[in-house]
């Protein structure tokens, strides 16, 4: 848990500082984690944000939503069935692991912002972090972190 928490702290604080200083997410294009944090920064509009509508569907029209709610139910059914069949706890945290792995995109968007300013320094700082983060997620899922 130690390395994962450290990486998440780094990501969240860099994300927050980048957002509040208007360096990323200024034009409305956010990655997954940035969308979550941008939603939290603007909590009144959380149900209209891309992450919420992508995960749950359109809030006022959940019954006819064909992507969000039904895919969530489908994925949940597969995971619960797999857990019942294998009795392996790690099956249950696959969605969380996938979400954490997707946060790599946030490191990438910060890297691309820095690369546009100074490629050498950006690659030296963000390259190792982005690559080792994916391995840390894998270790975390295996319980070796």
């Amino acid at each position, binding site marked *: 848990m130690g390395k994962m*928490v*450290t990486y998440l*702290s780094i990501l969240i604080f860099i994300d*927050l500082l980048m957002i509040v*200083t208007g360096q990323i997410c200024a034009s409305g294009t956010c990655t997954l984690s940035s969308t979550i944090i941008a939603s939290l920064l603007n909590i009144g509009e959380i149900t209209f944000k891309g992450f919420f509508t992508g995960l749950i569907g359109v809030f006022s029209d959940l019954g006819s939503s064909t992507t969000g709610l039904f895919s969530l139910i489908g994925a949940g059914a597969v995971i619960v069935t797999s857990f019942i069949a294998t009795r392996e706890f790690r099956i249950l945290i696959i969605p969380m692991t996938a979400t954490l792995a997707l946060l790599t995109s946030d490191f990438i968007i910060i890297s691309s912002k*820095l690369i546009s300013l*100074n490629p050498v320094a950006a690659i030296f700082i*963000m390259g190792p972090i982005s690559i080792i983060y994916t391995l840390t997620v894998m270790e975390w899922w295996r319980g070796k972190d």
Partner: protein
Amino acid sequence: MICNLLDLRCIIVNELIGNVLLSVVLGAVVYFMIASRMKFGFDTTIAFSIPLLLILGLAISSFSVIYAFVTVIVGFMLAFLFNQIVGNR
């Protein structure tokens, strides 16, 4: 590229060293060499390095570059503080 007389940024970055990052690194190295010769202690060296390196970076780079990289470094520092406060080690 031919630099104007007394255009220090152009002379240092383009003619003497050739790269912005390398210029900042070299400036930091020179600063720490001078600081070690003057023997004014670790804390003072670090405290003086913050404005000096910031101004050096602004002089040979641009504001947007310094702004982005300092944001990342402050993010690291806040994460370190946060882990010291609520870390689970």
